[in-house]
């Protein structure tokens, strides 16, 4: 048999039918659904009289619109948001899906709930009407975002029409230096490849620095594969993966566990597999990074300065000029001189327990800068409960952070958690687009430890100075 990549192996195990031109019908093992990208798909099913083919493989949870304030039991104020969440309540019930409503302690961001509940397993195909579905690739699952028409297609047929992408290997060799995290890895890769660099590829992340990461860290890395333009990001499953999965509510048990494990252990890229592109970064070269502009590729080490637009080429010169003006910065300015008003810790990139631990480690016994607004929004109700049990919630609150309920929150500001015009935020989320966190809001993407450091000093800060 010819050598295969991990992507090849998962793909081959899911082809239902292949047409002569290579277009495949791919079987989908898990379909995750949230309230924003699904109403039109369910409406489509109703209009055509179609059913959900595999409701037992379909998991729904509201996350984007839900309030994260402690009084959220009183309901959603914004009418349109409320209608969207109510529509999901109804669709989940009418079509018999697994559902975690707002009132359920297991509710949270769909990409955190899936792995937490054991819905996401190695070797699976996982889709969701959400680009950050790439997160689940951390388990060695082929996971990617789809549009609403495709959501409807998967609901109706449990398959997706797909053409195979190319294979890219991103290897991070060696060890990370102190203060450098999974977030810095994934952002540094995008800094190198650009936001379009992964277009047409599925990326497999490998190398010692990746192997050394926890499952939480691996999810952070895969989460931002989409920001590099890739269709999906993957990491081969290993003992850490199996340990993480074992015992979760929907993970296999007993004899099925053994059978699953036997297959999962075959899920790696063969030594002489073919790669269409290979990128290598030395772990030792990666520094704590931050974005200065309005694209995730606008990333630099925290020790750098705001770049000169003229140092770029082509269409990027205008884009950089526009970004620097939007961000209210001056070329040549030190990144560590940039003052912030807001700190947001959360999102499907960095809203897991390990992220909260990393931030709390910096904040312990410290206070946030006077006048700063800082909030922690745990990725799920269970993450929140665990953080309370570990005493992290207390550290955040003592430092002056708001301790919120689970949801997407200020990652995309569809609920009331938004930046005001001109406000500047150090954020652990994944997108620094114009207006992402609020109209004319300014976002600097950072790791949880860097966000905590910035909260203390009130400016972008090199976390290594605080450790």
């Amino acid at each position, binding site marked *: 048999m010819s050598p295969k990549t991990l992507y090849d192996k998962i793909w081959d195990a899911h082809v239902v039918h292949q047409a002569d031109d290579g277009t495949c019908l791919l079987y989908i093992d898990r379909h995750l659904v949230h309230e*924003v990208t699904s109403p039109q798909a369910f409406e489509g099913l109703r209009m055509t009289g179609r059913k959900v083919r595999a409701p037992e493989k379909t998991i729904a949870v509201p996350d984007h*619109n839900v309030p994260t304030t402690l009084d959220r039991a009183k309901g959603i104020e914004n009418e349109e948001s409320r209608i969207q969440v109510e529509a999901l309540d109804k669709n989940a019930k009418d079509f018999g899906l697994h559902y975690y409503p707002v009132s359920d302690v297991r509710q949270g961001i769909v990409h955190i709930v899936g792995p937490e509940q054991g819905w996401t397993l190695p070797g699976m195909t996982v889709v969701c009407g959400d*680009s950050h579905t790439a997160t689940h690739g951390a388990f060695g699952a082929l996971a990617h975002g789809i549009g609403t028409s495709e959501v409807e297609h998967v609901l109706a047929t449990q*398959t997706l029409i797909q053409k195979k992408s190319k294979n890219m290997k991103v290897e991070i060799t060696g060890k990370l230096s102190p203060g450098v995290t999974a977030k810095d890895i994934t952002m540094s890769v995008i800094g190198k490849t650009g936001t379009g660099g992964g277009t047409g590829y599925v990326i497999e992340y490998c190398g010692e620095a990746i192997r050394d990461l926890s499952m939480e860290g691996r999810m952070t890395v895969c989460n931002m594969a989409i920001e590099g333009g890739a269709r999906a990001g993957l990491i081969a499953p290993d003992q850490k993966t199996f340990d993480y999965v074992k015992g979760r509510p929907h993970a296999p048990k007993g004899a099925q566990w053994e059978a699953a494990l036997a297959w999962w252990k075959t899920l790696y890229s063969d030594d002489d597999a073919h790669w269409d592109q290979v990128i290598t970064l030395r772990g030792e070269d990666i520094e704590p990074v931050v974005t200065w502009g309005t694209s995730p590729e606008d990333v630099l080490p925290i020790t750098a300065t705001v770049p000169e637009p003229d140092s770029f080429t082509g*269409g990027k010169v205008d884009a950089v000029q526009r970004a620097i003006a939007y961000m209210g910065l001056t070329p040549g300015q030190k990144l560590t001189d940039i003052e912030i008003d807001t700190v947001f810790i959360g999102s499907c990139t960095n809203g897991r327990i390990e992220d909260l631990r990393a931030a709390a480690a910096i904040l312990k016994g410290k206070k946030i800068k006077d006048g700063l607004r800082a909030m922690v929004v745990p990725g799920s109700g269970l993450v929140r409960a665990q953080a309370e049990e570990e005493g992290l919630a207390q550290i955040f609150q003592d430092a002056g952070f708001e301790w919120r309920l689970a949801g997407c929150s200020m990652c995309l500001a569809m609920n009331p958690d938004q930046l005001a015009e001109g406000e500047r935020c150090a954020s652990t989320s994944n997108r620094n687009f114009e207006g992402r966190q609020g109209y004319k809001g300014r976002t600097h993407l950072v790791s949880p430890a860097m966000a905590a450091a910035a909260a203390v000093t009130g400016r972008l800060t090199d976390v290594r100075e605080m450790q």
Partner: protein
Amino acid sequence: MEKFDKLTGIAAPMPLVNIDTDMIIPKVFLKTIKRTGLGVNLFDEMRYDRQGNEIPDFVLNKPAYREAQIIVAGDNFGCGSSREHAPWALADFGIKAVISTSFADIFYSNCFKNGMLPIILPKEQVEILMKDAEKGANARMDIDLEAQTVTASDGEVFHFEVDAFRKHCLMEGLDDIGLTMERVANIDTFEAQAAQARPWV
């Protein structure tokens, strides 16, 4: 789905690179539970000021481009989220084709599901078409999906590639779900085999 065959229309130039889905349709408009009516909010934050007045400098607000059916854009158009609201908003405005050197994956695929044609051309050719689009309402471009060509207003012809299956669906206005439903026997067989091989799924 509406069929796409030939199109003669005004092209609006948007040379900015990395035009993302948050620019195309800001998230406040994602709260709808319908597919239609998003056209007025297309490029909302670039197109209107906070009071809701049009910003005259924005290309689609200029008299020459109000009826544009084509956008010629900088690299990596449609990057960001999977929101199909982006092609819905473009389609609702009246855009039927977007020309760029590259598109984000999900956006590219979403276009085809909505009767819209994303066209990838090499940089030099996009630059020529960008100049052509800058001429305004008198410069109409022709797009012929069957022949896979874009013809600039001066008659220069550019050939583009498109996946044969996607082209077929677009030209015939075919609904993917209907097509896949014809393969339901294959899906049944696969499901039965998978239940044996991977019963834990």
